[in-house]
């Protein structure tokens, strides 16, 4: 009996201990990144973010080209992905609950979600990039091919499954009796979506956009492979560039000096803080939405 009580206590302790360890991981991650970034922060302070030059040879590190690359690719991808994600969510949640079209779209989205990032990148590099290059030649602009645009398109394809899944979840949280009421008043499918479902899920859809943005910001491999990896600030989306994630992927193993390494890690720190914030806010909105939707 004594032994049982002991093992029971030990078991509870293990459970709690595991909880504490898991809770500590992101905290430790944050501390690690901060500590490792200290040399870069000491050297540049806030100027790190605003400086345009990234020159390992002269040991000058400024993150502006990568910040710009990350923001522009992510937002462009969001804009490109939005109509598709939104339509997919509508199709799956209401328009065609049953039927082959819905089934095909559903499996397509699931399969897209399962394709590894590096394969997207490879495909983009060998199929999409040459295509863009041809278009650029035809349009008479420098035919880089690898570009901010290529990265945005690949990113857009990659976030469609994620964004549409969240949007669908949000729409399915709306109490069905509200939709029923709208139909009972003679509303058509379209009118019920337009005037009841979408207005009721505004905040949830916004959260979905935020979470998709969080995804896009941190996406590394596919972007790295098609963006062209230049550390010069791009002046339009047909030029090559780099994102925070892609420059880390590219240069981390080559970083010989401490300051170089520390600057790359500071990029990682910025990326972590921004994505964590975005995720936190997005999840919070969805949780509120869930409570509101299920309540009454």
């Amino acid at each position, binding site marked *: 009996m004594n032994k049982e009580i002991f093992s029971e206590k030990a078991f509870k302790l293990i459970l709690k201990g595991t909880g504490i360890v898991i809770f500590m991981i992101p905290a430790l991650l944050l501390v690690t990144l901060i500590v490792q970034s200290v040399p870069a922060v000491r050297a540049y302070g806030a100027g790190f973010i605003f400086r345009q030059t990234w020159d390992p040879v002269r040991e000058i590190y400024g993150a502006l080209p990568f910040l710009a690359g990350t923001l522009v690719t992510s937002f462009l991808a969001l804009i490109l992905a939005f109509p598709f994600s939104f339509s997919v969510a509508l199709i799956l949640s209401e328009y065609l609950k049953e039927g082959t079209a819905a089934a095909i779209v559903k499996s397509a989205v699931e399969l897209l979600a399962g394709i590894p990032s590096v394969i997207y990148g490879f495909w983009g590099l060998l199929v999409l990039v040459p295509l863009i290059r041809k278009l650029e030649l035809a349009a008479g602009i420098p035919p880089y091919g690898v570009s901010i645009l290529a990265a945005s398109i690949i990113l857009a394809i990659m976030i469609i499954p994620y964004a549409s899944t969240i949007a669908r979840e949000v729409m399915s949280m709306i109490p069905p*009796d509200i939709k029923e*009421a709208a139909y*009972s008043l*003679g509303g058509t499918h379209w009118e019920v979506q337009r005037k*009841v479902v979408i207005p009721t899920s505004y905040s949830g859809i916004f959260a979905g956009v935020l979470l998709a943005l969080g995804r896009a910001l941190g996406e590394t491999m596919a972007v790295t492979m098609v963006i062209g990896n230049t550390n010069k600030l791009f002046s339009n989306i047909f030029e090559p560039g780099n994102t925070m994630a892609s420059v880390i992927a590219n240069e981390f193993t080559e970083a010989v000096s401490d300051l170089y390494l520390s600057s790359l890690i500071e990029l990682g720190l910025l990326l972590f803080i921004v994505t964590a914030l975005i995720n936190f806010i997005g999840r919070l909105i969805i949780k509120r939405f869930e409570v509101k939707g299920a309540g009454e």
Partner: protein
Amino acid sequence: MSIKTEKPLLQLNNLSAYFHDKRILKDVNFSVENSKVVSIMGPSGCGKTTLIRCVNRMHEMSPGGTAAGSILLDGEDLNQLNTITVRRKIGMVFQRPNPFPTMTIYENVIAGYLLNGIKIPKKLSLEIVEDSLSKAALWDEVKDSLNKKGTYLSGGQQQRLCIARALAMNPEILLLDEPTSALDPKATSRIEELVVQLKKNVTILMVTHNIAQAARVSDDTAFMYLGELVEYGSTKEMFTVPKDKRTEEYLTGKFG
């Protein structure tokens, strides 16, 4: 051939309903005259909700929901009309109050118009709102807070708001699916009074589990059992001398 003036408002002919292959309603036949309150009773799962959802053609929206037979409104086959018209003429109120959470009280009343994109002059919409809320016996309580969200109201008030919302479309028939089952006794009796008053304007089909409620408000009663219409007739008669044994057992609380 019966005489024209006696033509019933609503007539169900051999109505059967299915969920996928499962037959839920079995050849239901009955007709409802103008300005009557008809209650629909029967044990849980016997198909009452399915029946009234067939009447405004909401049943066919449920996954796997199909129907056979015909329903005539003023002699016109509902299947020949589009669902927009059917649902305009036949309003519905649900078991749980469900005002639109994003809309104000005012907007909730004219939700049918907003939803359907029907533009009406401000003056007319004000009239519709006052008229419908008065008919639903809610006007006095909310006339000073028309711009508040509908979800601020109490459960009973919300349910009357939903009735007003249905009335605003000027329906010929109002379907009520256990409209008081989510309400407290006081709110329930207000709805019951309201139903009795409303029959001046609209014919009512009301599903209820409450035998006393059916006795208080309805002129006629339909008793259903396992998807069949067992007995249909004057409420008073049925409650005093039920013709079918199953009706009698239900009314005396043997099952259900």
